[in-house]
């Protein structure tokens, strides 16, 4: 574990130099920074500034992206390759995509940009208390993750990336993901000019999850806003997100933060990292742990507290991914990985519970008449 001063020193001067930073820390951005660092990174910055703990990281900004494209000098060549293509002709689009992506991934990053990224990565390793910290490198699109306009999954994410060279390589791959066949087709269909889109790349410490899962700040089955529902399993959250296991299930009162319901399931599978292959792998949960609660009560309470803060910050029910990191000490190890607005209940029109009763008296009378239905 590094000292506090080392962390402070590492954080200082990441690169908010001038008005057009090429690289910046997540905590330096907020929800108004979508144009600079894309939706994903700006929402991480927003969370940090709301007091929510997320794994630390930094972004190559859209200026950094523009700088890269200028240095590479390929924009007109790219436009030429796409000219006259039909957005419904996926074969031709995929072929053009392959050529463009190879082109982007083979161009060197300028010394200036490479120095900025490498220095930030070194500082991130110091902050994470791990040399050459494994990171997630993911694209952060400027039109992604917006409420009602979600086309997530269109850009790339690379996990368990270690070392400066590998980070550089995957930053380029993320940039090139702007030119997947589907992304090209979408822009053509919507009439967005290719040279006007921009992308940012987030580089974030991998949460080395002991336990992970999802959390809703609304009851997913009845729309009750007074509860927080948490699903958890050992290892990474993908076993929970994919529905591969029946996770442990907790219902927490949002106001009092006490656990109202707990269901401990038999959890047969969990995901852990294969460092060599740089990917997560499924493994069987040891028999003696299968029926053990995968998250302790204090962590449930803290998570729910975080969920409540996130909801208050965004002013609406949220759908949150979280993890408990085994690299970091207790009390500093619960991380929020992602938070997006809950859409199902939030967009469903809800009839008023007062059902037209104008006064307490009218409500009492109409309720008396309705009575309580048995069976």
């Amino acid at each position, binding site marked *: 574990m590094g000292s506090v001063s080392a962390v402070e020193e590492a954080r200082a001067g990441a690169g908010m130099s001038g008005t057009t930073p090429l690289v910046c820390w997540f905590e330096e951005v907020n929800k108004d920074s979508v144009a600079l660092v894309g939706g994903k990174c700006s929402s991480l910055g927003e969370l940090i500034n709301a007091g929510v703990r997320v794994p630390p990281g930094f972004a190559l900004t859209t200026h950094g992206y523009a700088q890269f494209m200028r240095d590479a000098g390929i924009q007109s060549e790219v436009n030429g390759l796409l000219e006259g293509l039909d957005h419904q002709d996926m074969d031709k689009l995929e072929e053009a995509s392959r050529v463009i992506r190879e082109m982007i991934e083979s161009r060197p990053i300028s010394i200036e940009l490479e120095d900025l990224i490498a220095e930030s990565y070194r500082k991130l390793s110091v902050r994470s208390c791990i040399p050459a910290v494994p990171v997630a490198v993911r694209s952060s699109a400027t039109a992604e993750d917006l409420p009602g306009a979600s086309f997530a999954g269109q850009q790339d994410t690379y996990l368990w990336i270690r070392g400066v060279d590998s980070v550089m390589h995957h930053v380029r791959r993320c940039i090139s993901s702007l030119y997947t066949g589907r992304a090209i087709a979408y822009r053509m269909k919507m009439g967005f000019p290719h040279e006007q889109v921009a992308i940012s790349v987030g580089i974030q410490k991998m949460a080395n999850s002991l336990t992970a899962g999802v959390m809703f700040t609304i*009851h997913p089955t*009845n729309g*009750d*806003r*007074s*509860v927080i529902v948490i699903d958890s399993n050992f290892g990474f959250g993908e076993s929970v997100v994919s529905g591969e296991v029946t996770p442990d299930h907790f*219902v927490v*009162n*949002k*106001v*009092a933060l*006490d*656990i*109202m*319901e*707990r269901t401990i399931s038999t959890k047969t599978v969990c995901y852990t990292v294969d460092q060599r292959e740089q990917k997560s792998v499924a493994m069987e949960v040891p028999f003696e742990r299968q029926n053990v609660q995968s998250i302790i009560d204090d962590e449930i309470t803290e998570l729910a507290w975080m969920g409540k803060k996130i909801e208050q910050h965004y002013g609406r029910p949220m759908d949150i991914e979280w993890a408990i990191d085994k690299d970091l000490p207790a009390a500093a190890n619960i991380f929020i990985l992602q938070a997006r607005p809950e859409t199902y209940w939030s967009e469903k029109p*809800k009839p*008023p*519970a*007062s059902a037209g*009763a104008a*006064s*307490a*008296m009218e*409500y*009492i*009378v109409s*309720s*008396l*008449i*309705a*009575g*309580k*239905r*048995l*069976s």
Partner: protein
Amino acid sequence: MKFPVPHDVKAATIPGTEGWERMYPYQYQFVTDDPVRNQYERETFWFYDGLHYPEPLYPFDTIWDEAWFLALSQFNNRIFQVPPVRGVDHRMINGYVYISPVPVKDGAEIGSRVPNFMERAGYYYKNWDALEAKWKVKMEATIKELENLQISPLPDLEDISVVNDALGESKGYHLIKNYDDLINLGIKCWQYHFEFLNLGYAAYVFFMDFAQKLFPSIPLQRITQMISGIDVIMYKPDDELKELAKKAVALGVDSAVAGNRDWVAVKAAVEKLPKGGEWLAAFEKARYPWFNISTGTGWFHTDRSWNDTLDIPLSGIQTYIGKIKAGVSIDRPIEQVRAERDRITAEYRALITNEADLKQFDELLGCAKTVFPYVENHLFYVEHWFHSVFWNKMREVAAILKDHGMIKDIEDVWYLRRDEIKQALWDVVTAWATGVKPRGTYTWPPEIEWRKGVMEKFRQWSAPPAIGVAPEVIQEPFTIVLWGVTNKSLADWASVQEAGNPDTITELKGFAGSPGIVEGKARVCRSAQDIRDLQEGEILVAPTTSPSWAPAFAKIKACVTDVGGVMSHAAIVCREYGMPAVVGTGHSTKVIKTGMLLRVDGSSGAITITR
């Protein structure tokens, strides 16, 4: 859900109790000779009122059941006209009371009752505080009348003043008249009991109902928390004990006060101290009216008051002296409770998105807060203060019956119906006037012996929780909020019936009364006398608790009860003290034994027993 036919249950008479019906009013019987009444009884849903009557009723104690049979029903049906429900009907099997709300089945009739209810109930809701102030005056006057009522023995020769003042009446006549007055005061007191209660519960239950519509998962205890921190006189007796403890320490008499479990010994020791007189005067002052508090629910003659058993309040004072000596605050954290109430209310309010709902929430919450003090305070006036005095007046009547050889022991009087006592008193006064022996001296003692045997057999009998045909909808507000009749409770009742060997049960479920989780040793206290055995940090397991149990809560770290909902005494007090409670578990005092290790989860209502 299928429940037994009432007449089949009744027909299986316990051997040796044949003829038990004469111990209770005739209209309480399920009948087979009247085909119309029989048909009605068969098609009706009856549930056992275990909330009020954990034991079979003594013939005399049936008085309060008759009193509320009349009072609840008349206010529902004849005074306020609750639209969909008339009154609550009553029956008895083997001394256990079964009740049933009577619905208005015709939709048009329900509609025609609505304007009356709106006008009449509306008037009470609108003028609640002013009418409640009137109520207090009426109630206190009634209690005063009761306290002043003279039950005088019959003299061999009337006092000379009867002649000199030309009174023209005898002590015999007074006995008959004052017995009637005593009974009538009791019935009147129960009239007042229900004047506000139906409406109070309706306001309360529909605020809960509305909150649950807004937040389907909201625990009832959170809703009740929004109405907590309101000063009610239910806390007053306990506050008096705390004051007496503080005064004992301040006057330096605390060692003497804490020196013995027996009040007579303590009193003798305190009297000898220089400032002992001052403390004893304060003690006497606190007794009236605040020690007129029953050690049970007050519904039964067996529930003696603090004034009857001064060892019990003494034990409470001793507990508080111990706390003061240990430097622990004994004041209820009322400011904290209020701050938490306001925080919780504000947070739930902030989650309401619809304007109309927000307005309705505020109105209903306001209404619930208005009615809350009455819903709590009436208990002190009626069940505690009035009843405590009443039972002792009845003992004075019994003493006269005993003097004249009608009963062998004062406590035998409870085996007679109140109208039988009236007859017996007539027998006594006519024989006294005439100078002969009352007929009842021969007939009552053996009848009472037989009734004692019957009651003993009734106690061994386990009353089915429900009989008859379950309805689809229940509209009577008491049935819902007080007895908690829901699908779930019906199913639970059915399962309690089937519960196997109590020595193998490791899990019990009840209502989540007050949040939190603790583990600890159980202490089963069946009555307020037993709370003297409580050790610091134990978990109290009780049939139910009442205000006179308050000092127990200063020692324990959780509470479990057999009977009661989230509005029961145990739940309210635990929330105020911030300790877990699981209430209404049905049979925990039968399953749990003192010394067992328990885990009490007041947030989910689960109790785990480590065997």
